[in-house]
């Protein structure tokens, strides 16, 4: 059934005076209908813009990792002939992106879970487009935190040519995809304040066990083996690989890929549940 033949139906309520539908209703076929992807992108654009212009949110999401980079950079930066400074930069950029990804995920989701998602669906956005739009919006929002930590790093003595710097930023950005999904999943599974609280706990766990604050080698063996199962650890390892070189951490790609896949399915499944849950 296309929309083309809809308004062609004459107003013919049996035994009822109704205004003619033909005159005032424009022909639907003359109007171009946006695709599901176009709608998802429009939703992305709006949501990303709203978050990026949230001064408080952006200030916190950038100040925290930049501050920690400056602190740890001053403390350990000169070790290993200054290579440590680059590692600190990668770790803090990853941490900053991680924090923003999880917070943006829970926040975007929180805005919708109170029932606004229903308005979106009734406005023509499919649940799948909503999910895609949320993920894309969060991945736009994490860029400033990543880039500013990186640029501060370059300004304070991190040695990197333009190519490897951009590659590092790009790898970190891509690697953060599963952490965005973690934020969205938290937002869908937990209610209100619990989602933000859960986000903080998960962020801390991912940062510590992923060795973003302190090298994983400083921790007991069980923490190290746990850390190697987390995306946060491998995001930083991949970032170091593009910045400094060495062997490509293939395990990291597998771990990040697995997390993305599992969380993607989890989000898709809990989304349909979330629509039902948000009934009045």
């Amino acid at each position, binding site marked *: 059934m296309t929309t083309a033949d809809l308004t062609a139906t004459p107003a013919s309520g*049996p035994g009822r005076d109704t205004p003619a539908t033909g005159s005032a209703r424009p022909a639907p076929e003359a109007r171009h209908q946006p695709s599901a992807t176009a709608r998802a992108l429009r939703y992305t654009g709006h949501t990303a813009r709203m978050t990026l212009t949230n001064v408080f949110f952006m200030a916190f999401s950038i100040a925290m990792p930049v501050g920690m980079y400056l602190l740890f950079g001053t403390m350990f930066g000169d070790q290993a002939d200054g290579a440590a400074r680059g590692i600190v930069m990668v770790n803090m950029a990853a941490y900053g992106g991680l924090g923003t990804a999880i917070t943006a995920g829970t926040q975007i989701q929180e805005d919708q879970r109170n029932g606004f998602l229903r308005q979106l669906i*009734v406005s023509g956005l499919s649940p799948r487009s909503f999910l895609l739009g949320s993920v894309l919006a969060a991945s736009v929002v994490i860029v400033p935190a990543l880039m500013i930590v990186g640029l501060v790093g370059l300004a304070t003595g991190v040695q990197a040519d333009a190519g490897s710097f951009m590659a590092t930023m790009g790898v970190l950005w891509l690697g953060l995809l599963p952490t965005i999904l973690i934020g969205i999943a938290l937002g869908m599974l937990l209610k209100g304040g619990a989602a933000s609280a859960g986000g903080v706990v998960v962020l801390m766990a991912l940062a510590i066990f992923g060795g973003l604050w302190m090298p994983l080698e400083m921790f007991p063996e069980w923490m190290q083996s746990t850390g190697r199962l987390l995306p946060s650890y491998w995001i930083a390892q991949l970032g170091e690989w593009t910045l400094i070189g060495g062997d490509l951490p293939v395990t990291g790609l597998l771990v990040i890929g697995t997390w993305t896949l599992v969380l993607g399915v989890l989000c898709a499944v809990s989304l349909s549940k979330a629509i039902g849950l948000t009934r009045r």
Partner: protein
Amino acid sequence: MNSATLAPTPDSLSSSRAADPTAETAAISLRGLRKSYGPVRALDGVDLTVQPGEILALLGPNGAGKSTCMEVMVGLATPDSGRVAIHGADPVTATRSGVIRAMLQSGALLPDQTVRSMLTMLHSLQARPMPLAQAVEQADIGELMGRRIGRLSGGQAQRVRFAIALLGDPDVLLLDEPTVGMDVTARRAFWHRMREVAATGRTIVFATHHLEEAEREAARVVVMDRGRIVADGSAETISALVAGRIITLRGAHAAAVAALPGVEAAAPDEADPTRVRAVCADADAALRALYASPLADQVHDVLVTAPGLEEAFMHITGHSDETAA
């Protein structure tokens, strides 16, 4: 009592489940809809056909199934059984393509954003939007555009929800208790705007539990109760059905009062057994007969009142149970 207007509707009797010729041409076609939320039967076999251009009121108390019915029509809820067609299409397709739009009851808005910001976004998602300025004008929210949504009053938020429903320029417009939270002036202004929107030939279905709203604004009124359609007819018929009169008096036996023309039933009042309470189809005829009869000298404290809406619903529902039995 005109039993022809009672459920099951003539419409549902004449249509067979297998072949439903009306589903293709009707604006809305609901057939045998059932939906339960746990032990609660929100919809218990709803059959309804709405023709293009009709303005229909869904009247019923809270929990009658009006909201669920609308959620099913826009694909927000999936019926356990039964079929839904909106201009021949399934609800999800009709919603995506902009054929149907709904003003959801207390539908959530984005409290931190301005009205303009949120409307711009929702406008960009529409399959075939009307110009934003036109929706703003029709919902009369021009002066609210720069305001933060969280700071709007209940009535202003309802106007914004109305604008949201108009953005898609739908053929079928659903309004779920649109005047909730509005004072009398705002209510009147809202219906005035709604009539302008209706004049462009849209099919409009609105849910309400105000009988006056239903009979004033809709040509056809469908009464729902406990997930079923219990009456379906013109506004005048339903109004007469629901707005029967109650006569109470003292000084006569209930049986004698019940025998009067125009009186459907009479019984001692539960709260005050010396008082007789008579439900009338035609209170005028009953009074004329009363004062022409020997009872005229005995009765006193005669009062004529309108039944409350809850009572009216019970009245209709009780009769429909009889006809179904």
